[in-house]
């Protein structure tokens, strides 16, 4: 970031000046914008994912994001294309597996598990083939907040906006189909189309989230805030809002802590999310 005039000053323990410092660097502004978009996206999609018990599908998509990104780097394609292309293709494949099996849950998870392993293996191969990416491997798997480009930040905001609009319009039928598929189908809800549509949204969200948290730590934003919200309330609207708020809090705090400390953002975000989850799971006296 040669254009930045600001200088890293370290933590001054003065809240106002520390916050001002966070916004002084262009790369930090990009990270905060992208992080905010991703937290809102992952919080809302994640709430539905936990409700639908599709966390395994979400994890699979995250693992597919890794070879997508590594492959795009190797082929000299834009990183964004690699993330989104791999995740959308993965979502369509998962929907195909689910439709073909027709209810055989254990075989379906075995098939997706197999795809996961191949995905990780391929990603590793791509990274090895691309010799210059030694540090890139860590970033792809565990995330980074350095070097998020303007295009990336704008794309993430756009993906979040589109996903939220679609989600708002389809929220009730999707909720119905998630909780009570048989009755929803009889009431005229296109359960299958919604299932495919949701997987596509999930793929988009995973691809977006991976760019901040890395492929392996997507769950910190996608599952943990949502699972915490589901623990705290069984009201749908309150749960969705809580999931988004938790995601935002974890992301902002994580980015700030990563900026002022020597530890990576992936560590901070996962630890904060995990801490919140443990707190609500503690037996109440």
């Amino acid at each position: 970031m040669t254009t930045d005039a600001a200088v890293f000053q370290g933590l001054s323990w003065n809240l106002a000046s520390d916050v001002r410092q966070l916004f002084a660097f262009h790369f930090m502004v990009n990270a905060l914008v992208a992080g905010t978009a991703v937290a809102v996206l992952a919080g809302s999609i994640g709430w539905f994912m936990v409700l639908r018990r599709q966390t395994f599908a979400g994890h699979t998509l995250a693992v597919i994001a890794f070879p997508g990104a590594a492959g795009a780097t190797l082929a000299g394609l834009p990183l964004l294309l690699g993330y989104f292309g791999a995740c959308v293709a993965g979502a369509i494949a998962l929907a195909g597996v689910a439709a073909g099996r027709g209810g055989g849950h254990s075989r379906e998870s075995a098939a997706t598990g197999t795809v996961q392993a191949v995905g990780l293996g391929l990603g590793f191969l791509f990274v090895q083939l691309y010799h210059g990416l030694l540090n890139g491997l860590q970033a792809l798997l565990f995330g980074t907040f350095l070097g998020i480009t303007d295009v990336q930040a704008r794309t993430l905001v756009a993906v979040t906006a589109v996903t939220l609009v679609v989600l708002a319009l389809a929220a009730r039928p999707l909720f119905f189909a998630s909780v009570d598929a048989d009755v929803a189908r009889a009431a005229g809800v296109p359960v299958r189309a919604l299932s495919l549509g949701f997987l596509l949204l999930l793929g988009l969200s995973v691809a977006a989230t991976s760019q901040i948290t890395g492929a392996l730590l997507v769950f910190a934003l996608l599952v943990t805030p949502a699972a915490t919200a589901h623990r705290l309330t069984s009201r749908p609207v309150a749960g969705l809002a809580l999931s988004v708020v938790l995601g935002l809090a974890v992301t902002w705090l994580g980015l700030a802590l990563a900026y002022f400390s020597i530890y990576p953002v992936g560590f901070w975000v996962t630890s904060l999310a995990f801490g919140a989850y443990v707190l609500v799971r503690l037996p109440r006296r």
Partner: protein
Amino acid sequence: MSEAVRLEDASVELGRRVVWEHVSLAVERGELVAVLGSNGAGKSTFLHVVLGLLPLRGGTARVLGRRPGEANAWIGYLPQRRHFDGSVRIRGVDLVRLGLDGARWGVPLPGRGSEARARVREVIDLVGASAYAERPIGALSGGEQQRLLIAQALVRRPRLLLLDEPLDSLDLTNQASVAALVQRICREEGVAVLLVAHDANPILGYLDRVVYFAGGTAVAGTPGEVITGETLSRLYSAPIEVLRTGDGRVVVVGVPEAPFVHGRRHDD
């Protein structure tokens, strides 16, 4: 049109296997009808035909005077299901509310909420579930869950109610009270009810008519006509005896998977 359901010489197949054929029956408005039969005899399939989820292979079907599937807005459906386990953290009221407007797209408009909430309250009162409707459904007992699911099926004021094994996995006390509730709804709201049952005894006293699926077809009539050794022997093409106990219960002898013996759910 006073008929809720009419089938004429209907047949249906699943994966090229004929489930049943030559089925003719009529269900009147406001009747409580039990759908009986062995495992895999096609009882749930019959409900799927009524809902238009499964096309007939032959014959005709009319549901509330229309073709199957065209009248689903006036049908309340409770599928055969596993119960919600403890991890399902959805409140009973939300589940009932889904029955009212869960199929609607778009963002809910602020103005219409109170009317909908009033209807949800009313129907939850009707099934006697007010005390626990705000709690997560997974935390409720089987009988409590079943009452809320019946409320969900009733919330749009249907003219036809399809209940697939609503008494399954309930204890005897809850079976009796849910059966009584279904009859009360049938009489007070004038709703025709098709109730699939594995064990006919808990509902025997409430029934108007019976549809009995066996041997690849079905017979309809009053319980006295259908649940006899003669009719069932003909259906099963095997000697069947129907024994009546002193307290009015019925025991069918000679069927490998008799629907009068409390047993496992059927598999389809």
